[in-house]
């Protein structure tokens, strides 16, 4: 433990409104902390820059899953364990349930929150590819009110996002209109538990008479932040799903992604595996069975 608990203030106002008021009074001064699975690691290593932290743990207004007729709304401080345990998520958003199941370990899933995963903004964030292909919207809140934006516009650069200093991530809105879509999600890491992804690819696509009428592709660990693969989507949209699309799809993907070499993998490996995952999804689409 290289961190010094004397060096950091931590308060727990206990309600969303109290947190927002403190953040409005001194924007940029407070760092929200939910389950601590990211910030406490930095603290232990002595590299937690934030001096003033404000706890979001135990605030019921931020930890909820609401099932509406056409959406599911997930509070930002909902844990991955909450997501795994929710039958509505399992039924309507199987890719999100799947990604929640492979984040860290059980002990991490008890504490890590979906909002923390997004705000932390790791290029490898496990929940991001699923949220991107489900067309999630995020809702931000501050004393000034709330605003909603497509999650695909949330990340702006490596660990950067569009939030203002006085804003909190409040909730994630997920439309329930993917029941007839082919759905795909696969993470490639060194081990099933605890491994940060080398590559992850998610997809939702609507097929009509063998043609791709709608498609969303998203990846983790292939760029500076989790992102949709718009150019690869364009290359596939309107195409008939047969072996003829494999090569153009690969080419589009290779031209679009910008992975890095790092401790976990090489850029070359990431690109190849990503292309293989895409081909796996396309092959699955050729079969009549819907494979999630």
């Amino acid at each position, binding site marked *: *433990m290289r961190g010094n608990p004397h060096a950091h203030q931590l308060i727990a106002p206990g309600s969303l409104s109290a947190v927002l008021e403190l953040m409005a009074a001194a924007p940029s001064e407070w760092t929200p902390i939910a389950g601590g699975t990211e910030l406490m690691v930095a603290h232990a290593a002595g590299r937690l820059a934030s001096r003033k932290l404000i706890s979001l743990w135990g605030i019921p207004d931020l930890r909820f899953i609401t099932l509406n007729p056409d959406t599911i709304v997930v509070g930002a401080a909902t844990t991955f364990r909450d997501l795994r345990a929710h039958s509505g998520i399992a039924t309507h958003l199987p890719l999100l349930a799947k990604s929640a199941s492979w984040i860290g370990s059980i002990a991490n899933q008890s*504490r890590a929150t979906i909002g923390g995963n997004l705000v932390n903004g790791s290029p490898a964030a496990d929940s991001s590819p699923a949220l991107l292909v489900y067309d999630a919207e995020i809702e931000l809140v501050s004393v000034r009110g709330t605003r909603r934006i497509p999650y695909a516009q949330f990340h702006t650069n490596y660990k950067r996002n569009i939030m203002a200093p006085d804003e909190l991530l409040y909730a994630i809105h997920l439309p329930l209109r993917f029941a007839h879509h082919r759905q795909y999600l696969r993470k490639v890491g060194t081990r099933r*538990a605890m491994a940060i992804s080398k590559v992850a690819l998610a997809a939702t696509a609507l097929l009509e008479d063998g043609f791709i009428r709608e498609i969303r592709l998203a990846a983790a660990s292939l760029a500076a932040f989790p992102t949709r693969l718009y150019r690869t989507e364009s290359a596939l949209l309107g195409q008939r799903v047969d072996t003829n699309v494999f090569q153009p799809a690969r080419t589009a993907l290779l031209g679009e992604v910008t992975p890095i070499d790092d401790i976990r993998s090489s850029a070359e490996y990431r690109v190849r595996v990503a292309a293989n995952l895409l081909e796996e999804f396309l092959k699955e689409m050729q079969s009549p069975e819907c494979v999630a």
Partner: protein
Amino acid sequence: MSDGCPTIRFTVNGQDVAVETLPMKRLLDVLREDLHLTGTKEGCGEGECGSCSVRMNGELVNSCLIPVLQAEGAAIQTVEGLAINGELHPLQKAFLQCGGAQCGICTPGMLMAATQLLAINPHPSMPEIREGLAGNLCRCTGFTRIFESVVSAASADTSNLQAQADHAR
């Protein structure tokens, strides 16, 4: 800078505790240093190894990643809370019988993860045991015997297990 030390109250193994300490002190350090419950171990200190696993409000957590302020009002169970009046918990007996411990550093965390698993799934399959303990690393290569210990405990008297789980709440 901190604003001084608040008093943080929670329960550990059913006992009320009040600790005057820094809010950012890790629950792990409070357990070991302030409460002298040294059964909970520190391995990696970054949530990867599970040595510091405890149960908090019925969920498995890594105590190295919890600022103690976030334990305010919580019910914590540590490895010291497994045995009742000197009578070992069925999991502890099974670990002894099956050779589920070698150097012992991972053992408290393994026991807590296994306790959590059996609390929600009294008769887990081998894949479920592997998943339940996947966040707990043993570097003595003892995983097979650890898994066997959990199987053995799960097939022991389950009413006894339930009674112990209730006691720990």
